[in-house]
């Protein structure tokens, strides 16, 4: 065997071996080591500081890691198996193998406690939809405001739009004609006047927008008091909810079932149709009509005494399309326009448009009313109940 004396044949002398054992036994410390001992000097080399070593940082890190380790809880093997089985079985402990089921049930409970939380009112849904709607509106405005002559028009128009939206407009109310008339309507008129002023304030604070709470995403605008609030009255109720008008301020004396008590906390709408005293312009589609029309410089009716048609329709009764508001004996009604003008009308037809009716119903009515030669003279009574008179 004449291998290199550098490898396996290198051995410490028996003296050195004894010295090493003794050194290790008593606890070797490089700093205390007797520098006369070659063995001690050799071992001390192992402790040579590294070039880039930052002992403080390392120490801190080590301490932090140790602390983290100590605070890092781990699942037991059975719990870990139960967790895997629970996840694999769609988070349903009843499907987990029986041996692990009791642990999986604990996971059910743990997860349930983490997620059990009152989801709260559906108000958030409406606010989310309104939020998206306002984004859409802003996008539309941005697209309309292209750099052109149009944009200059828009700039000038913004001021007039604001002015036209009841902002700073003192509402000129039509004078009552008779004492009797006055009694029946003055309280109601002042309510509407106050509501109009409140809408102006609301518009000032809300980017020239009239009160809006429900967005135009499905639902029936007739459903007063349903949850989520999709009724059009919830839009008007915004004035109450935001403190612009007290509840009583939107209760007409001509409506015996009007709600007068202060709104409950979190209330979003009147509880039912009879509580509602005023009708508000229906917001449908992506943009409210009042906005389109105001921008075109045309005032439009936004508020009126409550509709006779809606009441009858909700009661499942036939409608009288020409009736006035039930607030004033089905005979008359106040209307308020976006330019702050107001009127006390006997007919719901304003500029050829029936304020109680959507266009589709108006067309049906018009068809009957305007069809020429509808009565030909050849008709005969069809029974004893069919009495009619002629020339």
């Amino acid at each position, binding site marked *: 065997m004449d291998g290199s004396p550098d490898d396996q044949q290198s051995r410490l002398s028996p003296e050195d071996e004894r010295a090493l054992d003794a050194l290790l036994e008593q606890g070797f410390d490089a700093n205390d080591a007797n520098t006369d001992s070659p063995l001690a000097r050799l071992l001390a080399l192992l402790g040579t500081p590294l070039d880039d070593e930052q002992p403080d940082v390392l120490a801190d890190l080590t301490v*932090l890691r*140790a*602390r*983290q*380790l*100590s*605070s*890092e*809880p*781990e*699942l*037991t093997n059975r*719990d*870990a198996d*139960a*967790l*895997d089985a629970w*996840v*694999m079985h*769609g*988070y349903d402990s009843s499907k987990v193998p029986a041996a692990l089921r*009791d*642990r999986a049930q*604990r*996971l*059910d*409970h*743990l*997860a*349930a*406690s*983490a*997620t*059990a*939380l*009152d*989801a*709260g009112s*559906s108000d*958030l*849904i409406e*606010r*989310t*939809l309104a*939020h*998206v709607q306002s*984004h859409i509106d802003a996008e539309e405005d941005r697209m309309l405001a292209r750099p052109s002559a149009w944009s200059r028009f828009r700039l000038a128009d913004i001021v007039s739009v604001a002015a036209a939206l009841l902002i700073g407009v003192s509402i000129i109310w039509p004078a009552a004609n008779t004492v009797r008339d006055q009694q029946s309507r003055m309280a109601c008129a002042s309510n509407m006047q106050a509501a109009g002023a409140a809408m102006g304030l609301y518009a000032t604070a809300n980017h020239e927008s009239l009160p809006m709470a429900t*967005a*135009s*995403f*499905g*639902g029936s605008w007739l459903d007063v008091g349903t949850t*989520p609030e999709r009724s059009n009255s919830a839009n008007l109720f915004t004035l109450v909810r935001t403190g612009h008008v007290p509840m009583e301020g939107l209760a007409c004396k001509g409506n015996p079932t009007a709600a007068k008590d202060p709104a409950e906390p979190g209330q979003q709408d009147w509880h039912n149709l009879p509580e509602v005293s005023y009708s508000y312009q229906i917001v449908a589609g*992506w943009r409210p009509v009042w906005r389109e029309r105001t921008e075109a410089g045309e005032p439009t009716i936004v508020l009126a005494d409550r509709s006779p048609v809606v009441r009858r329709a909700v009661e499942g009764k036939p409608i009288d399309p020409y009736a006035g508001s039930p607030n004033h004996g089905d005979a008359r009604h106040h209307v308020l326009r976006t330019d702050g003008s107001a009127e006390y009308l006997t007919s719901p037809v304003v500029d050829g448009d029936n304020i109680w009716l959507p266009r589709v119903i108006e067309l049906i009515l018009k068809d009957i009313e305007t069809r020429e030669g509808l009565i030909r003279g050849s008709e005969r009574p069809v029974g004893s109940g069919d009495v009619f008179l002629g020339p």
Partner: protein
Amino acid sequence: MPEEHTPSDEQLVKDLRRGDESAFRTLVSRHHDDLIRFLTRLVGDRTAAEDVFQETFLQVYVSSDTFDVTRRFRPWLFTIAANKGRDHLRKKGRRRMVELSAPVGGGDSGRPASFVDLMEVDIPAPDAALDRAEQDQKVQEALDALQPALKEILLLAYFQRLSYAQIADELGIPLGTVKSRLHAAVAQFARHWQRVSRDARE
């Protein structure tokens, strides 16, 4: 009674793209409860969660054209929500140091990794008659003590009820990492829960 046809989320997104506004409303209502719970737990307070909720659905609306309808809607929604929630926490500058300093378990440092045995943790059954508000607050406290990444994966996994593979796919992290993170998240949550419920009893 014939079962009413309920359109899938993915179908609703298709409808929304065609301009059907009611489809969007349906999506918002359908996911309202779970998403607001998820976000409240994630960001730690209700008001902020509501803001993030609105931002999330605005993002869904704006990005509906880019959604791959061959994929599932719910994970997409929750991923958007988690991103928005994370943004919110970042803006708020909520960098938690609680992991290193919170008293955990026995509270004595220097112990090696400690095992949690779920059978020994006092977890109330869902129907246990507890003070709802108090429990709610304690749960939030326990969740807030988790490292943010663990909290997120715990909530995402549970609320979406995804398999490990699906979570890995959605978050773009290896399956093994998902598994170990979820294990750690459950263990931490159980431990913190134990602590806060014990604190409450004392």
